[in-house]
């Protein structure tokens, strides 16, 4: 994979599943590697549960309101990083996009929702 700047090209970027569906943002990164070793990104971390570690009370409040959910997408699942971060499988396979999936049946009760 080409060289990417973790802060600028990865963190806070849009996640896209294999069908191009928008399914969350890169809320944080799991990076492993001790002193003297090469640090390696091992997973993309998604969900309100990771917001508190991103910022102070704003993140804690937002994380609590958002439901504190945490999803870990292994780095091996990343197909490509372009404008967004493209994943190999569909969003539900990672537990992503569940907010939209849960709300969909309700929205579909209103006539014309599929137009």
């Amino acid at each position, binding site marked *: 994979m080409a060289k990417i700047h973790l802060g600028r090209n990865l963190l*806070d*970027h849009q*996640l896209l599943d294999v069908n191009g569906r*928008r399914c*969350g943002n890169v809320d944080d990164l799991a990076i492993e590697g001790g002193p003297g070793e090469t640090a390696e990104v091992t997973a993309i971390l998604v969900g309100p549960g990771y*917001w508190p570690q991103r910022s102070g009370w704003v993140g804690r409040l937002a994380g609590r309101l958002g439901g504190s959910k945490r999803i870990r997408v292994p780095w091996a699942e990343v197909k490509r990083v372009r*404008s967004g971060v493209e994943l190999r499988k569909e969003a539900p396979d990672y537990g992503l996009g569940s907010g939209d999936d849960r709300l969909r049946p309700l*929205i579909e009760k209103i006539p014309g*929702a599929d*137009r």
Partner: protein
Amino acid sequence: MSKVFSLALGILAAIGGFVDIGDLVFNTAAGATFGYQLMWVIPIGVVGIIVYSEMSGRVAAVSGKAVFDAVRERTGFTVGLSALLASEVVNLLTLAAEIGGVAIALQLLSGLPYRLLLVLAVAGLAVVIWTIKLDWIERLFGYGGLCLVVFAVAAVKLEPDWGKVGNGFIPHIAQNNTLLYLYFVIGLLGAAMTPYEVYFYSSGGIEDRWSAKDIGLNRANAFVGYGLGGFLSLALMIVGGAVFLRHGINPEHLGTTALGAEEPLGKIGLLLALVGILFAVGGASIDTVFSGAYNVAQFFGWEWGRYRNPSGAPRFALSWLVLFVLALAIVMTGVDPVMLTEYAVIFSAVALPLTYIPILLVANDPEYMGRFTNGRLANTLGVVYLVVIMIIATTAIPLMILTNVGQN
């Protein structure tokens, strides 16, 4: 449809969609208070919205990023979230004011009670969004808004002192009532450069699946559409100066603005003005409510867009429905939409830098923009306007307090 024809249609819709309640209120009131002395502010505001719309449209076309994608990527979670909160508050105030404007126009046309019309207006707009495709919505309201050209006809018919109008284009500071004058300068700039226009413009580019080959279309829309739309602002100010200043009327009601077209053109002028206001403000309501939903969805990475039907983007659909309900609740309290407009415009001036800085940064990133990275002209203008915006942002609220929201 031939390319030229579709371009012309897009531009016509952009002209009709340029004016919103902020422009109607501030341009007319500025004319009624200071005559033609503030004409010079309008071109400055129009060039500002052109510069940043073109830039955000280009970023959307080339990198596929809408404004709040860029905001979060460039400013991080904490600052991004603060920018989101600020922009949502301003958006909600603006939306409430626009909905109030729709109800006022409907009331003057139908004579039905205001609060009933508020509910009907919101229900009607929601049904329109739910059932009609976005490009048709833009055309419908854009062409309807073209009725506002009646103000340009009225401005000419009123035979203003063109020498004085011309002098108004020379930047200067009024000798007396300087604070109020400055308040109007800020208000006119804020009304012309409302942030929701940029959110909507960039997200709309992604909705229309713009790519690098649509750069020309983007430029034409921004330059010609907003440029010609600016003439409507000039016309409103001339009418304000020629009709209301002469009679010593302060147009505190949106309906008074429409009367400005009646004096030279009679009943047909009034009718066209009211229909134009109805469509312009109705279209702006839709742009504003979408902007609010776009921003939230982009910040949190949800699926968004009207090109996906509501069931394709459920949280996005719920977001704009909730924003409509909240805005309705605000105007149902009976708060004056014109007052609400002034607050919305002044507070939007404070939120502007958080919107425009990330756009400027991404537009300068060759990794994303390649050969479409900002050139020297776009950067010079971008930075100049950033300075203008910073001055506006720091002076807006002090001036609002010192002038008692433009009342003295």
